[in-house]
């Protein structure tokens, strides 16, 4: 390929000429140091290049080396437990090469070329494979099954395949296309980050992403393949919430993107993640995590790319049939990077200086989340008998060794950091337009030591209706009703608080006072959850339903008693209140304790009529809707 040369340098923007074969978004190496850049504009023979590193010292006439490829990531064994920068350079390798500071022009492949992996083929010579077909597996960190797939765009029959120890770039199999050409397959494949990886079919998400955090799971649930947004005001405990999701969510792979974060905080994440243990396997959580760290003082273009790098890696694991959770912290920093680059390109600005395409870029990013039926083996010619038999077998999962009609999902939790906490600014507004779940972290709640500080009034989840059948089937038939009633009581509390502030508690009717009392119990005994207490940090959905039912049952009984002429004061200081407050620390499967508590409540506040009308606290159909099926 011909080497071009620099014509003009203005900040991170370089104009080059002499690149006849240049394509839009192609990666180039700029100047004598070989700085990484990306072509973002072409006019006639001139290409504008966004350079990903500091451009000091670049001068007209210096070389520009084309690579013929867009900005891509390397996908293959060795991704897990890695810490990358926004361009998928492993930070540890950079440190070993250049010391504590990131000097310019460093490069290092995303996947180690030295590491050896034990490849176990799962198809034989002569087998038909196409894009997405799994040809074998590799064990990462002993427990994770890394499935080696045929890269998109290829199909044919396996001409050779070799198991055993291989480097990521060794040829492990060859594939003969129908046109006779032979392609080499390695453990590694590349994919351009700005293009979504293909799948067979997008599906509607219907299953919850269970996090064990009660306010999330019961009040504002997220679906596997869904998208959520979390604003992070100072000191509201965003990091803890993110860690909890990473730790407990029923997903097999976690991708964490630190985009424009503080260096010291990123260090905290990098130090704490290795210490977190995966509750499902007891192994370090890092072994199923990929971290992407691009702090605020690292080059702005790499910050812009980091989000795409992360989601592409997430899609790769999704394509293997895994459930992936991606956390992007923060998308506001990402949007600012876009704004900065757009400003340098002298594009006409939209709202608050952000580029006019801010909304569409944000939407396109979040749209890469979702549940998909992955690409997998499809037989080419259904008219042949063998193929017909196999095609029929495909429809019966498990009937054919080749059949892997697998689904995978990417759930995205994007945090936003609006300037001045102003939720009306463009990044938040454009994000809210696409996300279905909003967890409004409030610093005022954090000051009151209400954790997790997710505001029950300002938050929402639009997945409730879609989740209702799943809840009814897997948790309890009345779960949705319980949740809605509790949410209603909390909303009513807010109205009543206004009145109390103006005219005092005495102005409320006894029933209203009881409702305030119930709201307090929901807040303190249900919503508040201690992430650092072993017996409180995770609640199964069954336990969440039980807790809600107990609190509401207690409230109903008090209301009934008030109707029958009792005084509210009669129910102060009941021993059963303490027991209720401690109920959240009961073990998930301790159904006796929950039934005992239900009985204690019934005894403390008896109903006048026969006591059989109430649903027993433990649903007969109780199945533990537990975390992760494991990997």
């Amino acid at each position, binding site marked *: 390929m011909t080497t071009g040369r620099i014509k*003009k*340098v*203005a*900040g991170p923007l370089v*104009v080059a000429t002499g690149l006849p074969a240049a394509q839009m978004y192609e990666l180039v190496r700029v100047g004598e140091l070989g700085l990484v850049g990306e072509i973002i504009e072409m006019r006639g023979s001139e290409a504008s290049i966004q350079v990903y590193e*500091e*451009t*000091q*010292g*670049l*001068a*007209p*006439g210096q070389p520009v080396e084309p690579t013929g490829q867009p900005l891509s990531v390397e996908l293959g064994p060795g991704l897990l437990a890695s*810490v990358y920068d926004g361009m998928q350079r492993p*930070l*540890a390798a*950079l*440190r070993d090469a*250049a*010391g*504590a*500071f*990131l*000097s*310019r022009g460093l490069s290092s492949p995303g996947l180690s070329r030295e590491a050896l992996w034990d490849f176990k083929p799962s198809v034989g010579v002569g087998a038909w494979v196409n894009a997405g077909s799994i040809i074998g597996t590799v064990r990462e960190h002993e427990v994770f099954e890394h499935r080696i797939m045929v890269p998109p765009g290829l199909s044919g029959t396996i001409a050779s395949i070799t198991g055993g120890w291989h480097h990521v770039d060794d040829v492990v199999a060859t594939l003969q296309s129908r046109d006779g050409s032979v392609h080499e397959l390695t453990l590694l494949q590349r994919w351009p980050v700005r293009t979504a990886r293909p799948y067979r079919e997008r599906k509607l998400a219907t299953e919850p992403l269970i996090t064990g955090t009660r306010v999330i799971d019961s009040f504002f649930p997220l679906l596997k393949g869904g998208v959520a947004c979390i604003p992070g005001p*100072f*000191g509201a405990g965003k990091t803890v919430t993110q860690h909890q999701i990473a730790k407990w969510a029923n997903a097999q792979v976690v991708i964490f993107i*630190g985009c*424009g974060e*503080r*260096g*010291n*905080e*990123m*260090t*905290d994440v*990098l*130090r704490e993640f290795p210490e977190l243990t995966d509750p499902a396997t007891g192994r370090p959580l890092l072994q199923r995590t990929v971290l992407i*760290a691009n*702090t*605020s*003082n690292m*080059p*702005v273009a790499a910050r812009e790319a980091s989000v795409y790098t992360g989601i592409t890696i997430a899609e790769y694991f999704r394509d293997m049939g895994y459930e992936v959770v991606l956390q992007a912290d923060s998308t506001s*920093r990402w949007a*600012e*990077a876009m*704004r*900065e680059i757009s*400003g340098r390109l*002298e*594009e006409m*600005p939209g709202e*608050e*200086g952000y580029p006019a395409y801010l909304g569409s870029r944000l939407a396109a990013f979040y749209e890469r989340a979702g549940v998909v039926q992955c690409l997998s083996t499809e037989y080419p010619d259904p008219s042949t008998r063998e193929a017909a038999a196999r095609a029929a077998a495909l429809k019966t999962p498990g009937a054919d060794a080749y059949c892997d009609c697998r689904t995978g999902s990417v759930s995205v939790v994007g945090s936003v*950091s609006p*300037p*001045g906490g102003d939720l009306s600014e463009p990044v938040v507004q454009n994000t809210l337009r696409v996300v279905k779940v909003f967890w409004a972290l409030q610093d005022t709640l954090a*000051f009151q*030591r209400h954790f997790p500080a997710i505001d029950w009034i300002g938050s929402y989840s639009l997945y409730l209706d879609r989740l209702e059948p799943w809840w009814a089937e897997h948790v309890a038939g009345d779960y949705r009703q319980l949740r809605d009633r509790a949410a209603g009581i909390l909303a009513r509390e807010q109205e009543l608080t206004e009145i109390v502030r103006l005219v005092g508690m005495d102005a409320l009717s006894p029933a209203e006072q009881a409702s305030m009392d119930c709201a307090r119990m929901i807040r303190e005994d249900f919503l508040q959850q201690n992430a650092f207490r072993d017996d409180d940090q995770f609640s199964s959905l069954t336990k969440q339903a039980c807790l809600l039912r107990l609190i509401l049952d207690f409230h109903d009984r008090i209301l009934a008693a008030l109707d029958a002429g009792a005084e509210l004061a009669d129910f102060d200081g009941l021993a059963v209140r303490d027991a209720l407050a401690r109920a959240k620390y009961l073990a998930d499967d301790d159904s006796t304790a929950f039934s005992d508590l239900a009985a204690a409540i019934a005894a403390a506040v008896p109903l006048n009529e026969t006591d059989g009308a109430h649903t027993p606290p433990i649903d007969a159909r109780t199945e533990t809707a537990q975390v992760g099926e494991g990997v």
Partner: protein
Amino acid sequence: MEIREVVGSLLLVQADATVAYDELVEIELPDGRRSFGTVLEVDESAVLVQVFQGTGGVRPDATGVRFLGRGLELGVTPDLLGRVFDGLGRPRDGGPEPVARAWKSIHGEAINPIARDFPDDFIQTGISAIDGCNPLVRGQKLPLFSEAGLPHNELAAQIARQASVLERSDDPTQAGAAERGDFAVVFAAIGVTFEDASFFIDEFRSTSAIERSALFLNLADDPATERFATPRMALTAAEYLAYELGMHVLVIYTDMTYYCEALREISASRKEVPGRRGYPGYLYTDLASLYERAGRIEGCEGSITQIPILTMPDGDKTHPIPDLTGYITEGQIILTRELFSKGIVPPIDILPSLSRLKQKGIGAGKTREDHAQVSDQLFGAYAAGLQARELAVVLGEAALSADDRAYLQFAAEFESRFISQGRREERSVTQTLDLGWELLKLVPRASLKRSQDAYSERYGDF
């Protein structure tokens, strides 16, 4: 070299030789004065130069332009200490140019996030409102958010004077002895008045801290475009002292508002698309490139702690400068006029102030085991006190409940005895915590539920 155009502080120069982006330019005016500039943009035939001292006196046909083949650099040496420089790193104290051991680009390089060491060494500032409630740790960047007319300079000078670290203590009930260690102060004045700058110089002289200090001064009447370089000069010096000489460096720069305004001026003269309030869209990245130079590096003895001072226009925290700063720094210390007008010095507004790294730097071994509890208690009690005060304004003090009256008294005493302290008074962290317990006795006992009882008995003598 032929000057083709002069517009504002920009020169468009016809260049024959190869000129690199961000190269330093020396300009010789017809009257013999010399001025510097940097290359903003190069293409094959022309170079756009930003002149620091302005273009007054430039005659296109009689002005010499020389490209120096390097960017803005600072010659680093241990002899930087004890000296006063101008905003571009030239001696301002009449002394000779120090002999550089190495020349460093003032832009520095980003620290690899995995090479960072987490900051968790408590810095004892001797100021109760900081040590007790919003502690500073080595490697942190903690700005002072102030307003015009508040004593932020005095506070910064007091911190510089008193800052020390505590030895590790094996006894959770005892804080270790204070030691200053191998420390240095790097001070950058950005666009402040001569008086403000001389306050700091005198302050450092009078405590003989000047020998451990390097000062970079760009005063209000110095060219605004030089302000871009001043904090970078200071930080380059700090990085050398910290990471090559292993010193613990405290960098104080004042006033970030002027820095940002200079940046806006430069951006406007470049005709860039403005962002919020006319500040350039890259303000966040630019500020990050300064603030993020704080920290510690694994395997390196030294550290850089930053205390940038910024005056919020009309106390507005949502103004782009404090707002973006808050998103990069690890918390903020906020000064308020309300306390200052009551005569409380330093007038630190405890509740909205925040130190995001405090949890890791306090507690048994580092300070004292009860530190976090005292801090939480004081926060809670003071918040309740301020609520009671609001209530008292509406209802009158007589109408308050006994509890509220107790909180009201606590708030008053907390302000006058805990927050307020003399400019020369240095309180050890033990004194601060003990004072905290003493004040907490004013609060209704039952409301001290956040604290562990053992601590209130051991330290509070309840």
